[in-house]
């Protein structure tokens, strides 16, 4: 028994070390990390523990989440502005570890005066007119999009799905020990999808992400902005505008996020490492030409 314990400790340490040194570039690093810890905690069967959510499943979960959200919102018919936001999004993501996802990133505008934004694991970024109208320049707009990209890449929406459910789905999906055939099994998967979507929507719309998740998304945004050549400090000006407008906005952003003041305090710690750069004249020019909200 003692011998077995030492072996486990040795292998465990080796695994962790290997993660730190060589697995960082592999896409499912984060998921695998969680799998290891949950495997130890719950003593789960290996088939369950070893199945991360794949990019394809992220995509289909994200599509259903977006389809649910869009029951409550109309898309704004703003072709030029939507194209502009998608270019900003791409200018940011090409600098990240995951520039493509399963089917790329896509930004659209929600026809609502609420101040809010949503991002699904499928790469759908939905920003309300109300939030867009808070941006004073392209760099501030980029900071909103970068924050949402942060949520996607840190897989925050997927973390809302109960661990028991994701391992259940993983078991069905990986199918190492199950032979899924027939309509009944498809209905089981649809049940799991239903429950998962409900959990994601509850967190995204009603409960909100944890404060730490919001701070992490802000920190990821700062790095993306900097790497893309935007002024990372633009996120502060955006948060300051939100701070002024939040009390007047009912529901929406204020309900699901920590206060703008708290976010400013946290993101300022990250920004210490980054110099301020001026907004480029051309960026301000095209912003003024495109944003007519």
């Amino acid at each position, binding site marked *: 028994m003692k011998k077995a314990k030492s072996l486990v400790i040795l292998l465990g340490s*080796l695994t962790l070390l290997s993660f730190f040194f060589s697995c960082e570039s592999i896409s499912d690093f984060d998921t695998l990390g969680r799998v290891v810890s949950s495997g130890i905690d719950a003593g789960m069967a*290996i088939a369950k523990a070893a199945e991360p959510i794949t990019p394809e499943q992220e995509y289909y979960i994200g599509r259903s989440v977006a389809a649910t959200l869009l029951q409550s919102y109309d*898309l704004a018919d703003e072709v030029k502005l939507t194209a502009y936001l998608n270019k900003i999004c791409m200018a940011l993501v090409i600098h990240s570890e995951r520039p493509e996802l399963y089917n790329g990133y896509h930004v659209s505008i929600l026809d609502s005066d609420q101040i809010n934004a949503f991002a699904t694991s499928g790469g759908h970024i939905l920003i309300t007119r109300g939030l867009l109208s808070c941006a004073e320049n392209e760099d501030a707009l980029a900071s909103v999009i970068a924050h949402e990209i942060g949520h996607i890449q840190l897989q925050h929406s997927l973390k809302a799905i109960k661990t028991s459910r994701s391992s259940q789905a993983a078991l069905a999906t990986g199918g190492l020990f199950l032979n899924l055939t027939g309509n009944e099994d498809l209905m089981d998967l649809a049940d799991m999808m239903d429950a998962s979507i409900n959990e994601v929507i509850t967190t995204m719309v009603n409960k909100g992400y944890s404060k730490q998740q919001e701070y992490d998304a802000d920190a990821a945004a700062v790095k993306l902005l900097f790497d893309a050549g935007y002024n990372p400090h633009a996120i502060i000006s955006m948060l300051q505008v939100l701070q002024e407008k939040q009390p007047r906005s009912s529901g929406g952003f204020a309900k699901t996020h920590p206060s703008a003041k708290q976010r400013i305090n946290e993101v300022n710690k990250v920004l210490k490492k980054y110099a301020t750069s001026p907004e480029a004249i051309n960026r301000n020019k095209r912003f003024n030409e495109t944003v007519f909200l």
Partner: protein
Amino acid sequence: MKKYTSIVLIFLFLLPCVFAKAGDTMYVNVKESILKSGTGFFASKLGTVYYGDTVIILAEAGKWTQIELKENPSNKGWIPTANLTKKKIISGKTQNLSESELALAGKGFSAEVEDAMKQRHGELRFDLVDKIEDNYVGDEDLLEFIVEGNLYGGEG
């Protein structure tokens, strides 16, 4: 004791993932990925690989991996490392499937499950989701946007 056995098994299972190297076999885990001539988003296009394609690792640099298609080694180039997985992907077009692999094809949260969701919940707005996904930025437009805005175009 059972608990420890699980942990040892998990370690053994993860071992191949931890040490990805040249010569390894991996699978494309995104819908499609452009093969580029170098490690940059705007490097020239050499071809395309698709979901489930089996590829051989040639080299790694930063967040990019150079691969060649197993079935057609002349089809090679660089793609983001995040677009690859060690886990075999069973897709509709995967050939030479064993019986058990065939039984798994298309399982999971897939287009098939989405169809079931559509039947159950006619109110879900998948039509608008499709509209959102129609938003696409071409490489030339993006490069022009980046240059005009004095932004960075990425490495390579």
